[in-house]
């Protein structure tokens, strides 16, 4: 076994690999989507694909917040920094993502815009306190783990009367994105990835719990196993999914019971519900317009909503030409299907978001499968 030496508990890895091999029905395929970019990273880092039979396949999902933010929203953030003269605070992941015309926040900064990398919304609040004469905007991105920190920051700004602070809210939700992927076959069968089950995200589920996935089993008859992000967690979760498929069962099971409960973090959920409301729809790179898949700041907190505070211009935003990020995010193409991969597009000169973030599928292939992928591309 090629990679088993990488595991801390090699015996357990071998045992799990053998159990998976024994459980798999060679007459069928098992296509499992790992939604979360953290799982994509673990699968590649530990070569999990090589530890399971060839008919068990991982389909990489859109759970990379940097990857799914469309060019338009990034262009808006760049406009806030350049035209409205705000101090734009962003998590570091976003800075190098190319928007329309391959313009990024980092390039805007190099050209004189005040773009600052922060680790936390706490840092953005500190910057606002220290610069009362300037407008400070936090670029809020991410799934259910990063949303509560944005909610706390808005509640804190209101409590303290920090009037120069606002959030440009791009927070998105996991369950509606999974639903959208499952409904895609009806819209466009050629684009549909055939999926037999899902590995549910680890830390997102500490916040929302396992309950929000139950509709997947009930309505779409798809098994879900919430998986920890250690490689052994992933393998055990794959085995649980295989058992469900073989037995014709559909359920939400929780492999990560060490941390995830059915109900999640109630305090965080209440705060998020107080500050945010559902957007009717939101544009995702790759998935297009997804109904009720993202959050907006409630009218009551409009003073802290950058979209209300600043008049953002109409734009003709465009994704990078030839970049296959959208199809890769839907799980219907792989990085090797993109002619830019490893040539025009590398982590040093990213053409698309999936190469920028370490959670992106392209960055994972680049880091762990570069030689094999480039060889496959040359052979085709």
């Amino acid at each position, binding site marked *: 076994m090629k990679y088993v030496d990488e595991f801390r508990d090699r015996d357990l890895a071998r045992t799990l690999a053998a159990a998976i091999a024994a459980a798999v029905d060679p007459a069928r395929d098992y296509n499992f989507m790992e939604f979360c970019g953290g799982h994509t*990273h673990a699968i590649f880092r530990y070569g999990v694909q090589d530890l399971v039979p060839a008919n068990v396949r991982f389909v990489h999902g859109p759970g990379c917040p940097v990857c799914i933010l469309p060019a338009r929203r990034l262009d808006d953030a760049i406009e806030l920094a350049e035209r409205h003269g705000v101090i734009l605070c962003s998590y*570091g*992941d976003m800075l190098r993502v190319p928007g329309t015309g391959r313009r990024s926040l980092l390039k805007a900064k190099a050209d004189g815009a005040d773009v600052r990398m922060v680790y*936390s919304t706490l840092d953005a609040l500190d910057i606002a306190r220290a610069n009362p004469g300037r407008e400070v905007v936090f670029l809020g991105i991410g799934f259910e*783990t990063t949303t509560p920190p944005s909610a706390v920051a808005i509640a804190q700004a209101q409590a303290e009367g920090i009037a120069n602070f606002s959030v440009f809210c791009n927070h998105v939700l996991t369950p509606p994105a999974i639903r959208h992927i499952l409904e895609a076959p009806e819209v466009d069968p050629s684009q549909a990835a055939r999926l037999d089950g899902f590995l549910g995200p*680890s*830390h997102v589920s500490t916040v929302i719990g396992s309950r929000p996935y139950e509709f997947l089993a009930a309505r779409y008859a798809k098994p879900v196993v919430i998986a920890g992000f250690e490689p052994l967690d992933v393998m055990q979760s794959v085995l649980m999914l295989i058992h469900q498929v073989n037995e014709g069962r559909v359920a939400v099971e929780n492999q990560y019971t060490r941390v995830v409960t059915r109900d999640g*973090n109630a305090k965080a959920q209440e*705060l998020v519900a107080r500050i945010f409301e559902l957007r009717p729809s939101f544009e995702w790179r790759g998935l297009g317009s997804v109904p009720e898949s993202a959050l907006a700041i409630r009218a009551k907190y409009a003073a802290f909503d950058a979209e209300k505070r600043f008049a953002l211009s109409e734009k003709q935003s465009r994704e990078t030409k030839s970049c296959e990020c959208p199809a890769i995010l839907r799980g219907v193409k792989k990085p090797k299907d993109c002619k830019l991969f490893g040539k025009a597009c590398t982590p040093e000169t990213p053409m698309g978001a999936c190469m920028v*973030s370490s959670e992106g599928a392209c960055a994972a292939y680049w880091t762990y499968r570069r030689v094999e992928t480039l060889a496959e591309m040359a052979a085709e």
Partner: protein
Amino acid sequence: MCLAIPALVTALHDGAMASVSVGGIAKQISVALLEEVAVGDYVLLHVGYALHRVSEEEARRTLAMMAEAGLLQAEVADMAGLPERAGVGT
């Protein structure tokens, strides 16, 4: 991006803030998202906020795994406010 890292709570402060230790680095974080936190608790730390309480055993195994996968150094660098790592953005 959605990765959280185990941190040991070393002191509690006003305004739902706490001091924690992560891989030997001291950091002030918010505990506004947790109901009850005590000194000596391990919490999952994500972008400056404690998201969840975890057992010491879970904290230790997660830290060991993250160190092995090269993720711990990246997270701690992010947290300490060091410059962005080229091509990496968990």
